[in-house]
């Protein structure tokens, strides 16, 4: 059975800006405000709706940070689920459209 891909995209309802390498994110629907650390920022910036999460973790996280691949994948899935529950990220097993991140 083929492995299911997870695609992630930034919601159009959010505001986001990088401040000294960390991303500030605010959901205009409920004004929840987050700052993302360097690793989470890398995932958020790569959330273009077209690149599978596994590929993002492999290229943007394991390629740049000293981290165990399985642990990174598990952490990334947890992070994506948390931001999805706050309406920051859209998650699908099909490619999605996304807003650019600055």
């Amino acid at each position, binding site marked *: 059975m083929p492995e299911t891909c997870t695609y992630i995209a930034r919601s159009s*309802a*959010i*505001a986001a800006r990088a*401040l*000294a390498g960390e991303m500030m994110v605010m959901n*205009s629907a409920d004004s929840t*405000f987050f700052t993302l650390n360097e690793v989470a920022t890398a995932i958020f910036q790569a959330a273009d709706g077209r690149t599978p999460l596994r590929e993002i973790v492999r290229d943007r996280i394991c390629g740049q940070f000293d981290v165990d691949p399985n642990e990174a994948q598990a952490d990334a899935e947890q992070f994506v689920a948390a931001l999805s529950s706050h309406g920051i990220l859209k998650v699908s097993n099909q490619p999605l459209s996304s807003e650019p*991140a600055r």
Partner: protein
Amino acid sequence: MSLMTEVGQKAFNLGVPIAVHMDVTYRCNERCVHCYLDHDDHGEMTTDEIKGVLDQLAEAGVFFLTFSGGEVFMRRDFFELVEHARSLMFNVKIKTNAVMIHEEEARRIRELGVDTIQISVYSHRPEVHDAITKLPHSLERTVRSIRFLREQGLRVTIANVLMTANYSDHAGVQQLAAELDAQYTLDPTITPMMDGDTSVLALRIPGEELKQVFSNPALVENQEEFCAPPKAPSEEDLEGYSCSAGHSFCYISPYGDVFPCVQFPLPTGNLRQQKFLDIWNFSPQMQEVRSIQAKHLTVCSSCSHLTSCSRCPGLAYVEGNMRGPSTADCEKSFYRTGVPTANMLRLGLSKPQSTTGDTAHLIQIRPIAVPA
């Protein structure tokens, strides 16, 4: 410290302009008696010019963007500007009188992901509100628009400017805000006209009534703390700065002029001639504003109110010296605590003596920001 405060402090320390207030027009469909603006168009930036400025602001790290005026909806391209701002992922707030917002506009504002809409309401009584705006039926139209916005689930804040004409109506406006499920803020800012005419200051609330405002628990939270006698400033306090103007905040006029703050009319450059970051980083005026620490303040550095006073450097500048005291803020500190300020003692006054009027937010404590 809240996450938002932490981020604001970080931007301050790094010199990142995290928040910008942009007036897109000075034109308006109301003629409020206390308004400080000249409503003629003296050459507003075009749609493309503003979009170009927004691109620059995004690159500079601006996150919080307030569109204001004048009345923003006097610009036919206003939604195009908001759409561009949102595509750049700004957190957008709009200040408006809302008169031109109908169901369609409210729906569009929601679709664009605007964070908050701040709307001026002067009174719950049409005869008082409309007499201030000089626009017949303006309260009725504004309230109807607020309902449209709330139906869309948008966050609305009612800004209640207090002046002599509506001083007794704040409780009614608060109640109206509650009925509309909107936030309420007191915004008693009466500023001299842009041409220097100070006649509008006659509309401001007299000092004795300030005392009543400060002691009203419906208007001021944490009253005990707010009205507590000031503590003498420490050595560390003297190393701090007044506010975020020029440090992490600035104001842009419809003509592209950049100022440290909307209340600080010190020109620092024009976006038709220079890039935003060149003005922000290298303008001598911006650098001067940024260099002023509490210890450099000519009178206030020896004032016991230093760390709790809302001293506005822009108002001090209007009075003639950006390092000097702001009389309006001295007055607030006195009526808030009953303790005379250093400026009053210097002048031998037992009560404040206003010179340029009260032009700052009343309900506000702006602690000195201490660098990390």
